[in-house]
């Protein structure tokens, strides 16, 4: 298992969705900290994400970081491997799982 503490490893002030929106975006976080763990399709170790200590999170940051990852590598794979820790905002892990589960609703209905 590896642990990613967003406060220590990334930023105390996470931003919005895309890199073009401004600094510390969800896309930036995904590219730098998450993508690498999913590039190898055989890898199945757990990834613990510590969400506490930051100023807060915008929905677009969380959706792009985790929902965006699920769009790339599949929902189930993400759900199986992530473990979210949030004592300050207990609803956050559920909310992030929700983003992962509904990450590509429209793409599926199109098919």
């Amino acid at each position, binding site marked *: 298992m590896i642990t990613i503490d967003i406060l220590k490893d990334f930023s105390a002030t996470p931003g919005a969705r895309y890199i073009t*929106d401004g600094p510390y975006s969800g896309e930036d976080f995904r590219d730098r900290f998450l993508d690498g763990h999913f590039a190898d399709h055989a890898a199945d170790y757990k990834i613990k994400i510590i969400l506490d200590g930051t100023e807060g999170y915008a929905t677009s940051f969380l959706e792009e970081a985790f929902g965006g990852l699920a769009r790339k590598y599949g929902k189930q794979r993400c759900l199986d491997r992530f473990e979210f820790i949030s004592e300050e905002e207990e609803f956050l892990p559920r909310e992030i799982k929700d983003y992962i589960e509904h990450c590509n609703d429209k793409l599926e209905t199109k098919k």
Partner: protein
Amino acid sequence: MKKIYHEDKWKKYSIRRSRRVLNRKRVSIIRRGIGPRGHSKYVTPLIYSNVKVTKFQTEMALPSNFSIINNPEEVLAFFHDVDFFVKDKRNIWFSMKGINNITEDAILYMLSQLDYHRSNSRNYKISGDCPDDAVAQSIFLNSGFYDYVKSKLSKSTSRDPNVLTIKKGNNVNPVVAGEVANFARVNLSRMDKKDSKSIYSTMIECMANTNNHAYNNKDGKWWLMARYDQSNKKVRFAFLDNGLTIPSTIKKNLKDYVLNIAGTILPTAKVRDCNLIESALKGEFRSKTGYPFRGKGLPKIYEYSNSGRIDNLAVISRYGVVNAPKIRTSDMENRFRGTLLSWDFI
């Protein structure tokens, strides 16, 4: 024999006379409210009463209750007429002496309108004074308004710790959002970092909305300001962008199109702006991108309001006004240029 009409003296006299006549006509046209110079075929009646038009200057007294949240129609009527005089290339004087109530939202809107005219008009001049009322004057001087305009008063003004001065940006700026959350923590001393998370994420949502929805060319601008109201023990926030507004950027559904067509015959059937804003707040699949995973910013802010994490949320965009958590909707007669979000944190 030399003709009198060819003499320099006569030519100068003639030019002066024609200028005088033209100026008299312009003042008369403005007073009747037919239309600005060069735009007389577009009838733009003046709607704000407190205007004094003279030969050299147009003096406009700002509404005594200078607040978009509390007095939207009068304030917007005032700015409607400012547009008129700017188009007419008049020198405008904002007389603020009569203001006895001023709020953050109106200061931000004034700044955004000055910015709008700066980038859309040429050869105009707006100047003014500041309120006589002690409280209103203190709010205005401490707002940081003078940091964004040319002024002799300007930057030297001492700062009030109860006011977070105006911040301006064109991108998502997490550092500023963090400053806003910190400002609330310092003033509401019982609050810790955990409680201020909703402030931080609301700020980021607002900035992201400006960047993604408010402008077509991605050159969006936003302004924000916060003030601690000691008497009510709450922090009041205002966030404004002067972009394309919520009603004009959200995705319209079939019902909206049908109602808008019906509205050409029966005006009451037309989709109201406040209903479109309400729909966007409730997250009824209104993201123009067409992706359900987008457009969650406004619903999140509405959710904070419903859960009591923020109070007195008001959203004003184009003609619509929506107040939350108990949804109250109304439409205004005068157009608001952009989108304003205002809320309290207790």
